[in-house]
């Protein structure tokens, strides 16, 4: 089941996940659970790569200057990435880094 994303919490790409650039975006591979996912837009790939630099998911979405429609589609994509452990909530101890 997809965990609910909390806009107030910070997330990041799971360190066990590698992103392979592809013409359509990227292929995400999780070395832990061996799942494969696809990020279907280059902009989404950049967003996911830099997700961990923001204090919260909401801030990350606002910083991108995205339209509401794009935000909604990103959130759907991010929820499916969270469901397969591709993105994770940042641990408290690495939030300060």
């Amino acid at each position, binding site marked *: 089941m997809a965990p609910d994303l909390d806009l107030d919490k910070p997330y990041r790409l799971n360190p066990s996940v*590698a992103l*392979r*650039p*592809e*013409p*359509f*975006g990227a*292929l*995400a*591979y999780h*070395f832990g659970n*061996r*799942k*494969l*996912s*696809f*990020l*279907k*837009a280059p902009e*989404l790939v950049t967003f996911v790569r830099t997700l961990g630099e923001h204090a919260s998911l909401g801030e990350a979405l606002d910083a991108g200057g995205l339209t509401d*429609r*794009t935000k909604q*589609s*990103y959130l*759907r*994509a*991010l929820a*499916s*990435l969270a469901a*397969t452990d591709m993105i994770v909530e940042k641990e408290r101890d690495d939030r300060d880094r």
Partner: protein
Amino acid sequence: MTATVEHTPSLVEQFKYGLDAPICLTWEWTYACNLACEHCLSSSGRRDPDELSTEEIKRVIDELERMQVFYVNVGGGEPTVRSDFWELLDYAVAHHVGIKFSTNGVKITPDRAKRLAATDYVDVQISLDGATREVNDAVRGPGSFDMAMRALRNLADAGMRDFKISVVMTRQNVDQLDEFQRIADGFGAQLRITRLRPSGRGADVWDELHPTGEQQRQLYEWLLANGDRVLTGDSFFHLNALGSETLPGLNLCGAGRVVCLIDPVGDVYACPFAIHDVFKAGNVRPAGFQTVWRDSELFKDLRRPQTGGACDSCAAYDSCQGGCMAAKFFTGLPLDGPDPECVKGHGEHALSTRDSSALPKPSQDHSRGTKRVSLGMPSVRMPDRACDTSPLAGLT
């Protein structure tokens, strides 16, 4: 599993234009095999003296790591009869290239099973083509059922989980699907079923072994009911034309676009079922794998939009995509026409009107008990090779 952003074309549409590196690479490490299965798609048996060396395989693994090919399917032949098999396995894992290897189980001893269970990033696939000894051994040879079951038991006892039981579906075993599932459940394994292709020695037995039309429907319905926990390697998309419900998977021929094959001598083919010069893209020896994957004219061609040809007027074309390229080729059918197992019956018609006197032969044949064909020069014979006498010479 797919992260979707609305304004982009479907993933499958994107895949048709090819990827920067394969998602699923099959790599056969040797043509040597202790068995001589009737339907062997690579016509394996004897080792080829020109097979890639340990160092050459390691260099390709280095390249796959750089290309971020996250895992490969290793097969053969029987890959575990290479004396450097376990060394290569460890090397790949250490270089972030996961290995799923197919084996008949010959080397899966209790000790080896324990080591495999302790190795992250390795998956094992045991081949079994009958849920009973009689059905299995008729195709894979005497003793092969017991060998596979022993390997499965060893893996389960070692605590390995979710290893695979891989079954090629034939006229003799479609009725055993539930029994295969019970065997898999009993070992804590996952069932994988794939389509019988008329490739390699499979061409010789395809007429009598490929599932009947009625069995194809049976298979389709079984997959609709059980498909979420069964792996298929996407091999049954030609069955989608049977109904309105689509089988799980990409529903796409990935040849040269998302999949390919490296054979034991380093030749790169568009897919594991197409070992023929027509589908050969190059060899990894001169310039490496990446050059072949990205620049070969054959692969560039496969990544251009394909037409349905004779299938264009068929309403089911969107569901089946014309089926399997290799199946058409080795049964002598045109590539832009129906699959020989077309569920609308167009394949049967095409088969009945083809010229079956000149079917294409695979470009590699390492079957035991046969002489290699000397292409175009009947007076010149290939010299007998030292390894002809024992298929495993120098390997065990």
